[in-house]
């Protein structure tokens, strides 16, 4: 019974999600992941360029390669330290760009679903507030990679 309901739900949902709009006006470049050992959380970086005429708002990210993927920001605290916080949204201005780069905006990628090694290509989908999505291929780089 539960199985049938689930199947029915999936049958209804699947066509919907595959029809979700592609965020064609957003161009991603320099997408990479800094791989850390022992399945520690990894940072993901990418430069996003908005070629559209209106601002785009990144609201979430997801990937089959990680159980958890969040948008984060590192910043300096008052005490001269470093602190991280989770972001609900990140706006990319019309005809502008935002860089997710070390010591600033980044993706916090936790609990890899399979072991990763430098050189691997990982697909991460960026979700925007207008319901559109952008699949981006990230290159896995070693922990001590320079930018």
């Amino acid at each position, binding site marked *: 019974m539960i199985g049938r309901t689930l199947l029915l739900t999936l049958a209804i949902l699947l066509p919907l999600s595959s029809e979700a709009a592609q965020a064609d006006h957003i161009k991603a470049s320099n997408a990479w992941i*800094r791989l*850390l*050992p*022992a399945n*520690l*959380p*990894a*940072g993901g970086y990418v430069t996003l360029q908005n070629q559209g005429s209106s601002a785009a708002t990144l609201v979430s990210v997801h990937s089959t390669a990680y159980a*958890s993927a969040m948008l*984060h920001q*590192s*910043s*300096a*605290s*008052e*005490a*001269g*330290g*470093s*602190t*991280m*916080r*989770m972001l609900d949204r990140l706006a990319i201005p019309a005809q502008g760009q935002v*860089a997710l*780069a*070390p*010591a*600033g905006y*980044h993706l*916090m*990628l*936790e609990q890899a679903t399979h072991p990763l090694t430098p050189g691997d290509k990982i697909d991460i989908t960026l979700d925007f507030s207008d319901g559109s999505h952008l699949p981006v291929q990230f290159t896995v780089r*070693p*922990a*001590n*990679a*320079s*930018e």
Partner: protein
Amino acid sequence: MKLLRFARVAVFSIVLGAPLLLTACQQQDSASPWQLTDISGHMPDLMFRLTDDQGKAVTAADYRNKVTLLYFGYTHCPDVCPLTLAHLHVVMQRLGNLADGARILFVSVDPSRDTPEVLHAYVAAFDSHAIGLTGSPSDIEALTKRYRAAFSREPDKRGGSYDVSHSSGIYVFDASGKARLLATPTDSQDKLVHDLHLLLSPGDAK
């Protein structure tokens, strides 16, 4: 391109990192050979009692005769700590054979998650001169207080994980354990290479 990107990060860090430790009492006389902030006489000698990433009990005395770079962080920090360690890796590479006289001491401010095993895998992924140190919360706190390096555990996030805010300075001690220099994340690799060169070259600027 690499330099440009580093410069961009550096500028970004300057904007965010303006109220950094010691900026108020920074006094550089023009004859100073140092490019980093000279803290000689302003900070106590290196002293601690911790456990290294091999599980061995160690004290500061175990690192006498090495120039040490003390940095506080934690392994569940995916952004700033790896960036700093990756920069230090480049600095060590640029120092060549001189780097054998230096050790990066990565002290965990998150001892409940950072076991010697996790720390070992972590520091080994960055540089062969890096040593992970952990210990009891009170011993770690004693060390952070000694260098006025604050840290605090942030509220738990969903799934029970949490972040730790921590000081981002790199404290440099000479081979006799005396505090000499403070580098901030905004300081360039060039400055670190320059000053470490002086500290590591026998007969120079000791």
